[in-house]
């Protein structure tokens, strides 16, 4: 006779082993037998939440709607150095745009793609909508419509016989009384159902029940307010939570609020306060470095990235950013060392080999240059990447004075990505050197078209 394990214990075990699907199925079985089993119910909510859980702290991209209907901005025209909205108001420290290329939005290219690297806002609603949604410039219409909606529908798929918990019939006041259930339920509503309104209601009732002494509920309230765009309320909640309990998460959430409010200096201050409480915390240091980078203050950003590396010497973002910074400040040899480190850590992709190739060329290690680029080409995942590699090869060709090769490289870049503005520009320059004015007109016509499309500055 086989001794059956206690199903609830088994479910727990599945949960701990991160087999959430099996865990939730097992819980369903238990709940069928005894519908009022609170332990099973709570476990199931947690399992379902874990399936779709996304770390809220991670930067999310501002959508067009949030951007344009933003009434939190303090000053229409911010002073230089106090805003993230104005690209190109460098506070010194960074190389000029002629030395370090910029993104389509006018920010210096960073060493690491993250959702906010495209920021730099378009000036008007019209401009924002006109901006084409190519791979480079994609910006969701609103942040609430993109990821969150998909998560919501995902929850419907996992349970074919309707939602697990029918929110409209839930007596939130009753659940708010039970602290052991309410937290799991909140996370379920917030992450799985993506129903911010109900989540907010539950959080409000619970924090009241806890007599405003539980910092966790305040953070959750703040998250709800943030999601709803009520930034000032969110700020209040986070601040109050911080008074009770210092948490890294709370600092990061509050930073997010300040960044959304376009107050980078306040965000920096806050993160530095956080560092006093949690000395050398990597996430806080990274946050500071990112803000400095967004503000075009590359020197300070690099300092903080170096601090990050002291704590966590496998931090990919920090290594990549420091590497690219060295490259653009005329130290390709040092950049090469950082990129080699990335290679040792197992990063293996087109971009890295491309960077290695460029560094090798500018550090005059000619033997490695072309093989790196070859590998980059073979690893390229899409046409845009191929185009970028050819574009860089064009520069190598110019570096060795072979303008025919350069011409062909730029042409190949265009063949792979026909709105590569830089390639058009460089082709026009090459034609100008040959003295073929007609061709120059042709290319600059294209270039002008693309610039209009992107509304560059």
């Amino acid at each position, binding site marked *: 006779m086989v001794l059956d394990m206690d199903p609830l214990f088994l479910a727990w075990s599945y949960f701990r082993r991160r087999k959430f699907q099996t865990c939730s199925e097992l819980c369903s079985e238990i709940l069928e037998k005894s519908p009022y089993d609170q332990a099973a119910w709570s476990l199931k909510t947690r399992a379902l939440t874990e399936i779709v859980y996304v770390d809220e702290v991670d930067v999310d991209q501002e959508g067009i709607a949030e951007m344009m209907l933003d009434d939190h901005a303090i000053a229409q025209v911010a002073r230089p150095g106090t805003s993230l909205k104005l690209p190109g108001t460098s506070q010194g420290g960074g190389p000029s745009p002629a030395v370090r290329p910029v993104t389509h939005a006018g920010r210096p290219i960073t060493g690491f793609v993250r959702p906010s690297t495209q920021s730099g806002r378009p000036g008007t609603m019209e401009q924002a909508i006109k901006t084409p949604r190519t791979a480079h410039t994609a910006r969701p219409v609103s942040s609430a419509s993109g990821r969150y909606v998909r998560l919501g529908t995902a929850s419907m798929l996992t349970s074919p016989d309707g939602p697990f918990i029918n929110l409209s019939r839930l007596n939130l006041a009753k659940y708010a009384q039970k602290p052991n259930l309410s937290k799991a339920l909140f996370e379920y509503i917030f992450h799985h159902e993506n129903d911010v309104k109900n989540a907010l209601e539950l959080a409000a009732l619970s924090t009241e029940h806890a007599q405003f002494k539980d910092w966790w509920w305040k953070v959750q309230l703040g998250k709800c307010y943030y999601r709803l765009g009520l930034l000032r309320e969110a700020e209040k909640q986070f601040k109050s939570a911080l008074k009770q309990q210092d948490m890294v998460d709370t600092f990061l959430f509050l930073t997010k609020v300040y960044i959304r409010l376009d107050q980078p200096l306040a965000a920096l201050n806050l993160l530095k306060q956080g560092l006093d409480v949690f000395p050398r915390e990597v996430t806080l240091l990274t946050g500071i470095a990112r803000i400095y980078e967004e503000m075009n203050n590359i020197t300070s950003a690099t300092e903080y990235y170096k601090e990050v590396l002291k704590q966590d010497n496998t931090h990919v973002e920090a290594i990549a950013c420091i590497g690219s910074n060295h490259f653009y400040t005329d130290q390709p040899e040092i950049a090469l060392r950082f990129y080699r480190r990335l290679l040792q850590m197992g990063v293996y*992709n087109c971009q890295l080999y491309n960077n290695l190739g460029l560094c090798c060329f500018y550090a005059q290690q000619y033997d490695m240059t072309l093989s790196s680029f070859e590998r980059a080409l073979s690893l390229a995942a899409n046409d845009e990447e191929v185009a970028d590699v050819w574009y860089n090869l064009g520069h190598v060709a110019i570096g060795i*004075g072979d303008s025919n090769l350069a011409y062909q490289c730029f042409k190949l870049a265009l063949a792979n990505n026909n709105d590569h503005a830089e390639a058009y*520009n460089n082709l026009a320059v090459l034609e100008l050197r040959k003295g073929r004015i007609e061709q120059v007109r042709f290319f600059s016509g294209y270039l002008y078209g693309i610039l209009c499309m992107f509304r560059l500055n």
Partner: protein
Amino acid sequence: MAEEEEAVAAARETSLQLPVSTDYKRPRSKKVQELPILERRNWLIHLHYIQKDYETCKAIIKEQLQEAQGTCEYAVYVQALIFRLEGKIQESLELFQTCAILNPQSSDNLKQVARSLFLLGKHKAAIEVYNDAAKLNQDWEICHNLGVCYMYLKDFKNASEQLNYALQLNKHDITFIMLGKMHMLEGDTDKAIEVYKKAVEFSPENTELLTTLGLLYLKLGIYQKAFEHLGNALTYDPSNYKAILAAGSMMQTHGDFDVAMTKYRVAAYSVPESPPLWNNIGMCFFGKKKYVAAISCLKRANYLAPFDWKILYNLGLVHLTMQQYASAFHFLSAAINLQPKMGELYVLLAVALTNLEDIENAKRSYEQAVSLELFNPLVNLNYAILLYNQGDKKGALQQYQEMERRVNKIKESSNNTEFDPEMIEMAQKMGAALQVGENLVWTKPAKDMKSKQRNTSSSKPLTLQQPLGSNQALGQAMSSAAGYSKSIQLSTGGSRQKPPSLPLEPDVCTDANTGESSFTPEVKDK
């Protein structure tokens, strides 16, 4: 192109301001009796125009023209001016022509028609219209513009006539500048200097005039005067980029690197992205023997101007000095790709190749250099040394004699040429080694020949004691050749004096660079 635009912009400014104010008065005074109603809103149009409120201005003009059925001259005139500001030259030309039909007696209208034609590049048509205008009213502006038109048509005789006439009527800096430019186009530097001298007398505080005059003197090699004028320019405007660059490169030529650096520091604030500036800074460091900094600066210059062979030349030179021959080879070959007609580049390439032990190609490179460079004795000397080291005494002798011939030629042409002492010494050694030392061409008396010969023969142990840097194995492998090849670099370094002063004409590269702003390699996000 850039010059042209500059001139156009400058001339446009002058030609724009005059007609507006006169036109404003003209309709009021003349036409008030005939068409009182049509002209009544001219003041409003004028007001909006000078406030640059073009949208409102256009709206009023439209109303006015509807009322007057297109016969209101002033409204059409201002509309045309606005079109021109918006870059719609063709439309503005048509409207100005309408103006000229409405009021054929006004020279202002004709001037504007001609101006539009000029902007469209139809110089001949512009000249005709200007001539018509001149019949109505002769003034400075017409003469000046006629001169400019003739200049672009390469009719320098008429151009200088008109420009001089303009100067007689009224003296303006812009006319002086155009006249000077015209003389430069003609290739007549002396006349250009005369013109600029007069111009400087007329307005002694115009830094552009002072700088240009200084640069002209520099071109002629009259350093004292050049320095004087550049210095004057710098006293009036201490951050004048062109003047700083020119003055700095002069100091550099005299080995005054620290002073030059302080000058460049000022310029680097105002123009941080100028390739010639970074090139000169790099060569300053080179002169101070700070090679790493020199390479860094030169590389930045190369990054900003990838097509400038002078920068590549300097990079090659610095790498040769650093004994990084492979890198030097790459930079020099890139330079040769961009500028295939320069003998000195081939010499440097050959030196790099010799050190890379590719003797065959080095010889070919020397051959090329000898065929391209017809006056420089250095080329032959270096070639002779290479051949001698390879044991080809006959070939070496031939090259040596060729060198002597060239030296004599230079001596004949000018009396006070000074040769690089290092080169003289090297040539003497060489002559001794080839046993032709008796008929020396140098001014030095051929005393203690014997001791010199001893020097050459004992050069082998000497080189071994010298620190050879990173490629020690290579250096040691070379026998007495090392003694020569080491000094070859230095003797080619005799031509080092040239590169820093090469890029000192700052306006040479402005042209190509304007379109190249994004000509920078990108390291992609990852």
